[in-house]
C-alpha cells in the first residue's frame, strides 16, 4: 500500500514566486490498484508523481511504500521500489545504447551493479523472448540503437524496462501523449497486459478523460492540489467521460 500522509509541497520558497502545490495532501493507494489521474494544467498531477519518485521533496508529511518510509530518500535511493515510464519517448531511455543494453540497465534496477558482463547469452535470450511477446517486431533488433526506434516502439520498450524488476508502484506519466492514435492504442494495450501479468500497483496520469475511465479501477480528478473526485466501483463504471468536463 502506498500512503501519502499530509504532505506539503511549496515551490520557490522565500521568493516572490512562492507557490504552494500541496497542503496537507493525503492519499492512499491499495496494493494492486490501478489508479488513473486526470486534471487540468497545474492541478498537481505531475508533482504528485514526482513526490512519490523523490524528484520533488516534501516540506512536511511522510510517504510510505508498504512498511518503508521513503520521505527523505533521493530518487536513485528509492528506485528499487519504484518503476517509471516518462512522457517523452526521447527522454525516457538511452538513445545511444542498444535495445539490449537499455534492457540490461533496467534489469539491474534495485541490484548492486558489479563488474560482471552486462550481457550474456542467457540474458539475450530472455530479452528476445519478452520482445517477441509484445509483437512489434523488435526481437531481431536487440543490437540496434534505441535512438533508431519510433516513439511508440521506444515507449513499448520503456514499459518492458519498467516491468523487468518488481516495484511497489509503477508510475506512468502520460506515457502515450506523444504518440499517434494507432501506436497509442498498441502501447495502452501493452500497458494493460503487463500490469495484469505482473499484478502491479499503478498510478497513471492521462490527459484523456476516456482513457482515465476506460483503464484501471479507480480514477482521481485533481484540481489545485486537491483530489476533488475519487471515483471507484459502480459510481465510476456508470460515469460518462463528458461528465468529467465540469471538473476542469
Amino acid at each position: 500500500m502506498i500512503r501519502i500522509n499530509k504532505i506539503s509541497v511549496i515551490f520557490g520558497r522565500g521568493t516572490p514566486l512562492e507557490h504552494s502545490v500541496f497542503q496537507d495532501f493525503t492519499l492512499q493507494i491499495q496494493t494492486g490498484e490501478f489508479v488513473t489521474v486526470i486534471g487540468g494544467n497545474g492541478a498537481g498531477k505531475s508533482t504528485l508523481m514526482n513526490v512519490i519518485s523523490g524528484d520533488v521533496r516534501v516540506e512536511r508529511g511522510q510517504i510510505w511504500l508498504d512498511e518503508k518510509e521513503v520521505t527523505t530518500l533521493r530518487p536513485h535511493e528509492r528506485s528499487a521500489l519504484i518503476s517509471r515510464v516518462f512522457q517523452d519517448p526521447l527522454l525516457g531511455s538511452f538513445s545511444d545504447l542498444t535495445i539490449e543494453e537499455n534492457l540490461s540497465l533496467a534489469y539491474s534496477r534495485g541490484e548492486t551493479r558489479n563488474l560482471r558482463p552486462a550481457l550474456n547469452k542467457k540474458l539475450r535470450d530472455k530479452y528476445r523472448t519478452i520482445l517477441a511477446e509484445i509483437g512489434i517486431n523488435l526481437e531481431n533488433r536487440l543490437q540496434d540503437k534505441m535512438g533508431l526506434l519510433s516513439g511508440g516502439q521506444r515507449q513499448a520498450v520503456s514499459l518492458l524496462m519498467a516491468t523487468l524488476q518488481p516495484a511497489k508502484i509503477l508510475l506512468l506519466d502520460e506515457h502515450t501523449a506523444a504518440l499517434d492514435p494507432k501506436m497509442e492504442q498498441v502501447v495502452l494495450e501493452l500497458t494493460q497486459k503487463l500490469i495484469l501479468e505482473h499484478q502491479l500497483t499503478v498510478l497513471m496520469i492521462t490527459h484523456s478523460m476516456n482513457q482515465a475511465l476506460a483503464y484501471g479501477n479507480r480514477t482521481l480528478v485533481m484540481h489545485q492540489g486537491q483530489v476533488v473526485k475519487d471515483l471507484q466501483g459502480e459510481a465510476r463504471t456508470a460515469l460518462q467521460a463528458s461528465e468529467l468536463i465540469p471538473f476542469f
Partner: protein
Amino acid sequence: MNMIQFLGALELGLLYGVITIAVYLTFRVINFPDLTVDGSFPLGAAVASALIVKGVDPVFATLAAILAGCIAGFVTGYLHVRWKILGLLAGILTMTALYSINLRIMGKPNIALLMEPTLFQGSNTVLPALATIAIVLIVLLTIFLGSQFGLALRSTGINPRVCPAYGINVGVMTIIGLCLSNGLVAFAGALFAQVHGFADISMGTGTLIVGLAAVIVGETLFHSYRIWLILISCVLGSILYYLVIALALNTNFAGLQSSDLKLVTSVLVVVALLFPQFRQKILSKYRGIS
C-alpha cells in the same frame, strides 16, 4: 621523414593513445569536458620522477603517479558534483592548482631521469612495451565498459535525467569517471617521463587538445559503435596525429617549424570538427543534383 622520426612519432602516438582513451572516457563516455588533464599529465610525470630520483622502484613510482592522478580527478569531480561548480571551471581550477603542486612535488621546474632506473630497460624495448600497455588497456576497458557497472557509467553520459529512475547515482558515476580518466592521464605522464628521461613543469600545456584531436581523428576515420573498436580508433587516431605532425614539421612543408606545433594542433582539431559538417553539405548537394 626518416625511420627514426617515424618510430619517434609511433612512440609518441602510443603514449598519447593512453591520454586519448582517457579523454574519450570524460568527453564522450560521461560527457564531461574535463580540463584537469593539462595538470594531471605533468602530475603523473612529477610524482613518478620525484620518487624514482629518491630511489623508489619504478613500478611503485608509476602506481603512485596513477593514484595521484585519480585524486586530481576526484577533486575536479567533487567540486562539480558537491558544490555545483561548472564542469569546465572545476577542471581549470584543479589544473591551475596542480601547477603549484607539481612544482612542490618536484622541488624544481624539471627533473632529469637519464641515469635512473625506469620501467623500460634499453631504448629498443620502449615501442613493444608501449604497444603491450595500449593493448592491455584496451582489453581491460572493453571488459569494464561492457560490465553492469560500466554500462551504468556510460548511461550517465547519455541521459543523466533518467539515470536516478534506474538507481544510478549520476554524481558518484561522474566522480568515478574523472578519477579513472585522470589516473590514466597521470599514468601516461609517468610513462612519458620514463621514456624521455625527464619531467618538466610545462609539459602539460596542450595535452588535452592533443587528446581531443586524436579522439576526433579516430572517430572521423573509423566511425564505429563497438567499444573495443572505438578504443582502438582512439589509439590509431593518436598515432595518426603524431605521424601527420611529424610529416608536417619535418618535410619543410609550407615552411612550418617545430614552434608551430600548437598552432598546427589547433588547426587540425578545427578541421576535424568541421569535417563532418562539410561532408554533410557536400553529400546533400550531390543528392540534390542527382
